[in-house]
């Protein structure tokens, strides 16, 4: 009975979304109320579930789809990690989007798809087997497209095309690999230790190919080089979408999928024994470096952030590919940390664009004086990305480093170092511009009451996430932090 909380969590965003579709454009109040109510309700449910799972009461719900295929919703510690992140950020992003899109057209459509997108993400988090995962994964693809092209400009449409081309191809390969795997391994429930270890060794060849296919397909959303092209071009979307896309929804879905596949389908022991993870680690390392280098030369702020995402998401994969407890902790905790940091950055970028019309890095001179709070949040996000203590990014990096040593792959530390340097190289000049360079012209002064730099709906979300970035770093050792939770997961995973 209590397992009904799982579909309830899904529906808490799906239903408002569907209702919102039907609302006429002018029903602002009702739409806003629905959005916020859904987000809050979901957060509440997630909190309930969180408590339960923390007490090791895992919820599970099975719904037969076809004979022999089930839709499995399950909440384990890993799901909760992702779920909490998405629920929390959804609330913030919703608030932000309400402020951001004030007065723009097609809002019902936007918020409808927005809710669908979050429902899909929630579904991904709650998937209990690979089939369910694939279902929600593809749902995400589709529900994100209208958001990417929301502006309806030819440029947005072109980006949408690229996005669709990549994700659909990726989805197709994923689909195929899943069917193949299902046909040789039977039910694909996520379970610690994986489901393929007991198979006939004659199938190991196929399993390796399937593994490669799975990584390849999930790598599209996770923006592994060279499958990342869609991500920088998708930044034409409105800022809340970019924020969600980069922080929780799309790229994270890919990374989360890779975690699931490596941990709960193939199992760490098996994948490590079959040398499946080393290529993944190499690819992730390459992506980290490549993304950062490309970010260096971007003048468009959101593009720079997008390439930064390309780089940062691979931290997660790198952690997973180490196949050591510490590496896993590093990777998983970065899932949360990167999300918070990147969403902060995108919120801030959105604020700049919305309030001052700034899109380019070289237009940001001295903007810290006009929008000190926004830019403070931006700075926190940027420094966190570099991995400076006590911000959240450092915690991830620290564990990744420890993990690489434990895995006997110290070269990964070099990657981390190089990435840190590069991150610094593309973020610090921006931070410098914000605070230390004289503005070229006077910014239009605020028309808001009390000279506030921008509306509360736009300001509060980045501040909240920036605060979280700080808190998750400083309080990493406390109960309830992302790190704490991730350590629980790792303990489960490795039977510690």
């Amino acid at each position, binding site marked *: 009975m209590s397992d009904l909380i799982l579909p309830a969590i899904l529906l808490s965003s799906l239903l408002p979304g569907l209702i919102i579709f039907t609302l006429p454009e002018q029903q602002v109040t009702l739409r806003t109320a629905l959005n916020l109510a859904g987000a809050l309700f979901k957060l509440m449910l997630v909190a309930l579930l969180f408590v339960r799972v923390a007490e090791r009461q895992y919820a599970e719900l099975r719904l037969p789809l076809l004979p022999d295929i089930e839709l499995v919703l399950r909440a384990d510690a890993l799901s909760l990690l992702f779920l909490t992140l998405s629920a929390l950020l959804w609330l913030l992003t919703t608030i932000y989007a309400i402020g951001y899109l004030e007065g723009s057209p097609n809002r019902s459509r936007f918020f409808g798809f927005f809710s669908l997108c979050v429902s899909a993400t929630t579904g991904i988090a709650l998937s209990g087997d690979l089939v369910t995962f694939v279902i929600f994964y593809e749902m995400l693809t589709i529900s994100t497209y209208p958001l990417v092209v929301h502006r309806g400009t030819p440029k947005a449409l072109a980006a949408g095309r690229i996005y669709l081309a990549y994700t659909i191809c990726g989805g197709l390969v994923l689909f195929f690999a899943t069917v193949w795997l299902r046909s040789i391994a039977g039910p694909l429930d996520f379970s610690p230790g994986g489901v393929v270890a007991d198979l006939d060794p004659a199938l190991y060849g196929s399993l390796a190919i399937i593994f490669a296919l799975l990584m390849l397909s999930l790598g599209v959303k996770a923006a592994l080089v060279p499958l990342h092209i869609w991500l920088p071009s998708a930044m034409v979307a409105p800022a809340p979408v970019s924020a969600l896309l980069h922080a929780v929804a799309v790229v994270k879905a890919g990374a989360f999928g890779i975690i699931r596949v490596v941990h709960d389908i193939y199992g760490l022991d098996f994948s490590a024994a079959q040398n499946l993870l080393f290529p993944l680690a190499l690819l992730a390392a390459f992506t980290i470096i490549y993304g950062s280098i490309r970010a260096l030369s971007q003048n468009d702020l959101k593009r720079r952030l997008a390439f930064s995402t390309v780089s940062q998401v691979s931290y997660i994969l790198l952690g997973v590919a180490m196949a050591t407890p510490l590496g896993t902790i590093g990777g998983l905790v970065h899932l949360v940390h990167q999300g918070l940091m990147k969403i902060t950055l995108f919120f801030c970028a959105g604020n700049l664009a919305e309030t001052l019309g700034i899109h380019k890095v070289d237009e940001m001179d001295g903007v810290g004086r006009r929008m000190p709070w926004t830019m403070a949040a931006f700075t926190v996000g940027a420094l966190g990305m570099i991995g400076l203590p006590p911000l959240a990014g450092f*915690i991830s*990096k620290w564990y990744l480093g420890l993990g690489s040593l434990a895995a006997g792959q110290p070269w990964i530390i070099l990657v981390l170092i190089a990435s*840190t340097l590069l991150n610094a190289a593309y973020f610090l000049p921006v931070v410098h511009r914000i605070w230390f360079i004289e503005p070229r012209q006077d910014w239009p002064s605020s028309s808001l009451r009390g000279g506030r730099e921008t509306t509360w709906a736009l300001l509060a979300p980045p501040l909240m996430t920036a605060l979280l970035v700080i808190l998750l770093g*400083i309080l990493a*050792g406390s109960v309830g932090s992302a790190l704490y939770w991730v350590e629980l997961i790792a303990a489960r995973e490795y039977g510690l």
Partner: protein
Amino acid sequence: MSATVSTAMLLLVPVFPLLLIGALTVTRVRHMALAMCPLAPLPGLVLALFPAANVSVAMPWLLVGSHWGMDHTGQIFLLLTALLWLAAGIYARSYTRNSPQRLRFWIFFLLCMSGNLGLTLALDMISFYLFFTLMSFAAYGLIIHDNTPFALRAGRIYLWLVILGEVLLFAALLPAARAADSLLLRDVAATLANAEGMNLILALLLVALGIKMGAVPLHFWLPLAHPAAPIPASAVLSGAMIKAGLLGLLRLFPLGFATLPGWSATLLSLGLLMAFFGVLMGLLQKQPKTLLAYSSISQIGFPLMAIGLGLAAPQQWPLLAPVVGFYALHHGLAKGALFLGVGMTGHLNSPGLMRHVTLAGLMLPALALAGAPFTSGALAKAGLKPFLMLSPLLDESLLTLLLGGAAVGTTLLMGRLLLILWSPARAAVKAATSGMWGGWSLLLLAVVLVSSYPGVLTSSAAGADLKWIDALWPVAGGAIITLLGWYSTRKRGAHLGAKDLDVLLDALLRRLANLAAALKLPPPPRLPRGARWQNLPLLLLLQDSEQQLRQLSVAGVMFILLLLALLLL
């Protein structure tokens, strides 16, 4: 102090400045907070002066498990840091009174202070790293505060080296933590000697911390950054922050745990090199603050040598450690006083009492640095002397001679400094205000007090009696040479001001920037409209076939062919 109070004080040391920053952001209390800013290091000062026994606090919830506390080393460093920041703060309150970017300055000042103070209390590596980083990055804000091209360039170079230092430190801490299986710095130091890849770790540490200390050849940021900052900031940069590297070495190197002759020799020679290099380069400068910065490089060579000696003889380390601490204290205070003094030179060219007081105020720390008798400098050097025999590299007498030579050099440097400060060109410097006087005199007082605090030596140097004459000759010699030099060049005027490695770095960075620009790939060429995929030849062909197929006769052939195939199959 009771344990609870001292624990609270301990926590307050790094947190209080941060709380003040918080207050600064609130418009309503900003004014009050500004007034309180100079007092931010007070908890640290109190804690350092009235230490409770073994005050420490473990905070597993903080970061990945933090441990703060105060030991002997920490106490000395805390004392130094708190004093310097307090003095600089008082000084800065006047100094920045009319600056338009006052708020920004104080925010960075407080941030940096928090990092620097916290650093002395951090007993685990993550907290250490945290405060190290906080301090380093916040200092950037201080360095480029003036927004001059010179400051910006200095800031950029500083930032690069900070980041480099950060990542190297990170890379060193990781294997160290793994080897120790603990985050406590104590454990790390104890196990480091047996750690896998010990040499690599030590090298990384040396480089990472050496950057902060201005170790040659990664020193070049220092003569740029310290002068670029506003005077109070320079004082803390050169007096306190430079010691962070030293503190790191003290905390992390396996001092007292292992005999590492190779590393001992390395540090020793590095220390010597720095001592002379700093002097030589310093003599070539004409900016007082630059000169002082080079002097810092030179001075920091001595504790480095002491650490080298400690690595040669772990059993002697308990005796040597206070010497290093004292040296740091002495240098920090003296250097701080000198830097602050640079801002007071407006009085040097005005007649009257103020002129003499200022001159005396400048002379005091200068002499202390040079190691003149009855100064803290002499005490420090005397403390070091008994351990020179431990050197694995050169024999004792030669070392003594070299140290003497360095002292001569330092004297020369100080002499030149005074000459520069006295020069008519500096007459334009504004007269100092009362707050500046307050800060400066606080430091001068501290210098005097430290000089009369030989306890540090009697406890450590095991009865080595002080021979003031040993301290006298280099100072006297240096003073004479200075006067001669001044006399011979006063007509021509010295056109000095040497370039350093930063020029090379600039070239390198330009290359990197070009590389990054080259990587920006050109956008893919857009296909002309006619060549869009809807009009691909294949599709056109298909369309044509479809048109054919639509004719009943052709379709009929297909039908019958299918029927035929089905019949035959």
